[in-house]
C-alpha cells in the first residue's frame, strides 16, 4: 500500500506527537451501576513516528484511552495534546481511528465504505478510485467490492474498516484491536503491511492488541496496562530496527520481550477477573 501512498513525514516537525497529561476518565453512575473509574490518572508521550502498542486485561480501559486520545471523549481530569494543540472535544485533523466494534456502514457497498472519507474530504475521483482500488485489493476484498457489509464475514467487515481509515493517510493512526477477528496468518500479513506503511509514511501508530507477540513484533514501545482503573504498569521498549517484519519473531531475544509482557499481565488479568482491584502505584511516561 505504502508504495503508492505519498509519505507524510511527521518526525521532523514534532518530537512529541501527542501527549496525555494526568488523564483520568470516570463514567458517571447510571441505571444499574455506580460510577466507573475506567482510566488513569495516566500520562503518556507519544513520540512522533513511533509505533506504540498497548496491552492490558479485558475491561482495563484501553478503548477508553483511545477515545480520550482521539478527542472522542473528554477526560474527567488532565489534558490531551496533539501536534502541540490541545484536544478539546473534537477530533483533530490527521487522526485516523479503527474501532473495536464493527463500524462499517451497512448502507454502503464495500468500495463506497472505503471511499467514504476520501469523498468527504473532497478528493478528486481519479485519485479516490486509485486509492480505493489499491486498499480493497490489499485487504483481500476484491471479489466483494460491490457487496454490502451484511454479506461479509466478521473478519471481512473489520478489514473494510481498516481500509477506510488507512486510505486517508492519517498522521496519527489509532487502532483498537483491528485484527481481532482475523486469523493469525492474515494478521501477520496485515501486520507486515502496516509496518511498511508506517515506515514509509512516517505516521505515528498506537495499536491496542490482545496478542502479545503481535505487540512485540510491531512496536517500538509497548505500554502494559493494569486492571481497571487503567494505568501503565510499565512501558517496555523493544529496540527493534525500524526496518523489521514478521521474520523478527525468529530472533532469540524476541521471546524475552513477550515473556516479560506475559509476566506483567498474568497478575493483572487475574485481578481483573476477580473484581475490583486496589489502586496501583505504577505510572509510566
Amino acid at each position, binding site marked *: 500500500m505504502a508504495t503508492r501512498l505519498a509519505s507524510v513525514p511527521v518526525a521532523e516537525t514534532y518530537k512529541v506527537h501527542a501527549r496525555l497529561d494526568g488523564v483520568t476518565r470516570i463514567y458517571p453512575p*447510571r*441505571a*444499574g451501576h455506580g460510577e466507573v473509574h475506567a482510566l488513569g490518572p495516566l500520562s503518556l508521550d507519544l513520540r512522533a513516528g513511533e509505533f506504540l502498542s498497548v496491552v492490558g486485561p479485558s475491561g482495563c480501559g484501553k478503548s477508553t484511552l483511545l477515545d480520550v486520545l482521539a478527542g*472522542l*471523549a*473528554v477526560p474527567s481530569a488532565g489534558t490531551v495534546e496533539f501536534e502541540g494543540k490541545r484536544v478539546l472535544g473534537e477530533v483533530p485533523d490527521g487522526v485516523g481511528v479503527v474501532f473495536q466494534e464493527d463500524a462499517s456502514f451497512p448502507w454502503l457497498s464495500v468500495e463506497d465504505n472505503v471511499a467514504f472519507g476520501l469523498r468527504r474530504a473532497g478528493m478528486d475521483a481519479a485519485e479516490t478510485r486509485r486509492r480505493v482500488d489499491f486498499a480493497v485489493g490489499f485487504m483481500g476484498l476484491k471479489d466483494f467490492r460491490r457487496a454490502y457489509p451484511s454479506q461479509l464475514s466478521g473478519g471481512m467487515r473489520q478489514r473494510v474498516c481498516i481500509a477506510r481509515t488507512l486510505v486517508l493517510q492519517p498522521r496519527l493512526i489509532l487502532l483498537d484491536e483491528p485484527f481481532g477477528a482475523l486469523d493469525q496468518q492474515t494478521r501477520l500479513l496485515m501486520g507486515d503491511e502496516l509496518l511498511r506503511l508506517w515506515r514509509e509514511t512516517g505516521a505515528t501508530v498506537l495499536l491496542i492488541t490482545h496478542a502479545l507477540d503481535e505487540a512485540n513484533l510491531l512496536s517500538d514501545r509497548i505500554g502494559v496496562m493494569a486492571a481497571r482503573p487503567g494505568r501503565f504498569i510499565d512501558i517496555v521498549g523493544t529496540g527493534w530496527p525500524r526496518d523489521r517484519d514478521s521474520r523478527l519473531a525468529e530472533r532469540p531475544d524476541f521471546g524475552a520481550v513477550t515473556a516479560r509482557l506475559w509476566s506483567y499481565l498474568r497478575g493483572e488479568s487475574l485481578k481483573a477477573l476477580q473484581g475490583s482491584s486496589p489502586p496501583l502505584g505504577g505510572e509510566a511516561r
Partner: protein
Amino acid sequence: MTLSLRSLRSLRDPILVAIGLVTLWQVLHQIAGDSAVTAPAPTLAHLWEMVGQARFLPHLRETGLAFLQALAISCIGGVLVGVVLGGHRLTGEVAEPILVGLYSVPKITLYPVILLLFGLGMPAKVAFGALHGIIPVVLFTMNAVRNVNRTYLRAGRAMRLTPAQTAWHILVPATLPEIFSGLRIGFSLTLLGTMLGELFASQRGLGFLLMTAIDLHDVKTILAIAVLISAFAVLANAALLAIDRRLHRGATPEAEKT
C-alpha cells in the same frame, strides 16, 4: 435527592411549554377575537364550570368507556399484529400494503361501512376509535421488529425459544422505544377516533357535546372540550414517556456530553 431534582426538571420543561402554549392562545385570541378563539381565562373558567355540572359526567363516562375499549384494541391488537407482520416476512409483505392503503383512505368516508358492520352506538364508536389508533401502533412495531438486530434473533433460536417467547422476550423489549412511539400516537388517535364516531351520530359523549357546540358556534365550549382532551392526552403521553424511560433505562446510553 438527585432523583427528585431530575424529575422536577423533567416536569419543569413541559410546564414551560404549556405556559408558552397558553400565551400563544392568548395572542391568537387577540388576533382572531371571540368568534374564533375565546381567551384562556374565561375558557378555563367555563371548562371548570362544565366539569362541575352533574350532566357532564354521563358524557364523560360514555366517551371514556368507548375510548378504553378502543384503546385496548389499538394497543394490544396493534402490538400483536405489528410483531406478527414484522416477525413473519411473508405475512408482512402480504398484509402491509393492504393495511396501509386502507388506512390512508379518509375514515369519514368509510363511515357508512362502519355503520353497516357495527350498527349505531357503542360498538361503532369503539370500532371507529380503534380504526384510527391501531395502524400507527402496527406500523411502528412492525418496522422496529423488521430492523431488530439479527443476532438477537439468532441467539433466541439457539436457546430454542418458542415463537411466542421470541416475540415477548426479544422482539418486544428490543423494540420497546418504537412501540412506545407508536402507542403514543395510537393513544391520541384512538381518542380522536372515538370522538369522531360520536360526532356523526350520538346522544351522549364528548363528541356529542363538541358537535352541538360547533353547531351553535359556541366557541367557548369547543375550546373547553379541546383543552380538556388535549390536557388528558398530554398527561397520558407524559406517563407513557415515563414508563418507556423506566422500561429500557439500561438499554440506551444517555447522550454523552462532550
